[in-house]
């Protein structure tokens, strides 16, 4: 008897499966999206993509590099009058590299930044042919930062009133540090 029961079970469940897939065959529309034409929305606040960094606002405190679990942030700043690396508002960054072949995109570098000049952005595509292509030289401009917080906005206003942006750009040009960032 189990012979026929198994046979019947096989036929029944197969028919059920075919009905289910047949339902999808006649269903209108599909779940997936067509990638280059459509993209999924990205949450501006939470998305953890490639960093956005403001080279002028950076005070070279190295908090982000210390917080990084994989040590993928390399920071150097130009020496001040005393010959020590400049810190604080007047710091001139000569190097701010992030090695994306190491980066975990964990976001631990963002909270410790006192000037909120680094954050994880919306970009996620960084193709390249060599490992060196994975290193982004943020001090040469990098990606412009989107101000997400009031604190950052007020800091930018402060920088503008003190004309620090202009000053720093000029100084970097004097020191021969390339700046790819377009003038505002």
């Amino acid at each position, binding site marked *: 008897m189990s012979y026929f029961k198994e046979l019947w079970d096989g036929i029944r469940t197969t028919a059920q499966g075919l009905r289910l897939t047949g339902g999808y065959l006649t269903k209108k529309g599909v779940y997936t999206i067509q990638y280059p034409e459509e993209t999924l929305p990205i949450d501006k606040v939470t998305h953890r993509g490639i960093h956005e960094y403001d080279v002028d606002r950076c005070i070279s405190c190295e908090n982000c590099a210390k917080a990084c679990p994989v040590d993928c942030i390399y920071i150097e700043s130009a020496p001040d009058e005393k010959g020590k690396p400049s810190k604080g508002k007047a710091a001139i960054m000569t190097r701010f590299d992030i090695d994306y072949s190491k980066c975990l995109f964990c976001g631990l570098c963002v909270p410790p930044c006192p000037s909120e000049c680094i954050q994880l952005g919306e970009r996620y595509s960084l193709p390249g042919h060599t490992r060196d292509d994975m290193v982004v030289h943020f001090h040469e401009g990098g990606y412009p930062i989107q101000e997400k917080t009031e604190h950052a906005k007020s800091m930018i206003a402060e920088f503008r009133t003190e004309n620090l942006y202009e000053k720093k750009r000029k100084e970097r040009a004097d020191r*021969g540090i390339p700046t790819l960032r377009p003038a505002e």
Partner: protein
Amino acid sequence: MTVTEIGALLKERFGEKILEVVDDERHGHVRVAADAWVAVATFLRDDPRTRMEMCHDVTAVDWIEHFDVVVHLYSLAKKHKVALKTKTPSRDDATCPSLTGVWPAADWHERETWDLMGVRFTGHPDLRRILLPEDWEGHPLRKDEGNPLEYHGIPGIAAIRGAEERLREEELAKKKQRAGGHPGPHPAVGSHPTDGVTPGVKP
């Protein structure tokens, strides 16, 4: 049963072989002399009051002069837990009796501990490396184990770090040159531009 009760039970049965009972809120454990290691484990498994059926984990901690072998036991029937600890005789003589005869589950855990920590489990039927390749030298989780410079032509992290840094500095120098800034190679790069950047070369 709490760890204290289990400790009392064990003390009653094994006497001075039970060295210490710690009923800490964080990690309750019983320290056992190495020669009673298997006997205590078997007792804990078979005694109807304890019935530790499950050997959850076997591992070791490197305390420089010796290793602590730690076993975490659970009883599903009695819903209690205990950790057993024992010392290896010394750092050089890092041996401990194997528990594979008591719980087959200990097999892979002990192999892993041998592989990464270098604790030799006597009586283990098949003590081979498990996570690392067969021809690896050293036991990387020991505190004195450094980073290897090379393995079959693959540069170790120590070798890469030096090379990477130099590569980057060299590139920076090139960029500066392009921008018309500081001409000449970076002092760290040396006379020849490819010095020390070949992978696998020890710095």
